């Protein structure tokens, strides 16, 4: 069973790869994939919304489950 509290949507076309979201995610859900971010550990998401708040490029949406 998945423990994820939210589904993270990444709009790759907007992502500029600054990695702020990767750094400040408290449960290390996100990782860099070459130049854009990817969801690496979806189950660990606690829906804290920090990545969406901090993304300067409108590239992350946190859909709470």
């Amino acid at each position, binding site marked *: 069973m998945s423990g994820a509290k939210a589904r993270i949507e990444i709009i790759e076309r*907007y992502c*500029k790869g600054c990695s702020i979201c990767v750094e400040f995610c408290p449960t290390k859900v996100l990782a860099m994939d070459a130049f854009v971010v990817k969801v690496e550990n979806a189950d660990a998401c606690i829906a804290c919304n920090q990545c969406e*708040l901090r*993304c*300067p*490029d409108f590239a992350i*949406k946190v859909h709470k489950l």
Partner: protein
Amino acid sequence: MAYDYEKSIRPGKLPHIWCPGCGHGIIMKGLIRAMDTCNLDRNNTAVVSGIGCASRLPGYLDACTLHTAHGRAAAFATGVKMAKPEMTVLVVGGDGDGTAIGGNHFIHACRRNIDMTYIIMNNSIYGMTGGQFSPCTPTGALASTTVYGNPDPTFDIAKLAIGAGATFVARGTAYHAAQIDKLIAEGIQHKGLAVIEILDDCPTTYGRRNKFRSVIDMMKRLKDIAVPVAAAAKMTPEQLEGKVLTGVLHKEERPEYTEQYAEVIKRAQGV
């Protein structure tokens, strides 16, 4: 559901032009949330800017927007507010645009206490024009025009605004993203001139020259230097060395300019 920012952005405008890691996008999101908090009608809200990276913001926002001459945002915004006092007027811009080239307009908008909200994105540099030093570049820092270190002391925008007569002054940072909308919303709801300074990062023209290895280092620095006003009250001057106060720094009530001016019009017309 995720926060719906797209409804406030002009279709087809994203991705924006700001560099990877630039905090302007974080501040723009805060501004959109604040506009929603205050239930602003976008057809009755003017967002005015001058020139610079930060001043590109109104181009993305779906509101009544005005992109004006360098440093003149406060002057144009004053004109909009005088002509249409019922409009909500927001001014956005950078530290160079607001406090150097537009310093004169800025202090006089503060002095008049005209009902506007001035959001200054302070990234310590002129980013768009090539990294020249601004009045907010830290002493000793490197810029394209201070290659041996900046000899100038730094403007404290909040103190400048308070000294000039602004009746609401607050400061946040791009790192403290969740606080930005609350400060801006409080500024919008305040009757009179509200100055919201948001400390920002410019990884491209400031960070690289000043030994920040990445945008993450710049964000962590913002986290480290920010001290909320309440916490600062319990700290010694030594502990506060090198720190910057955040939160609402000043709030007072004083007659608002367009209301005062309406009285002048009444007197002149003898009614």
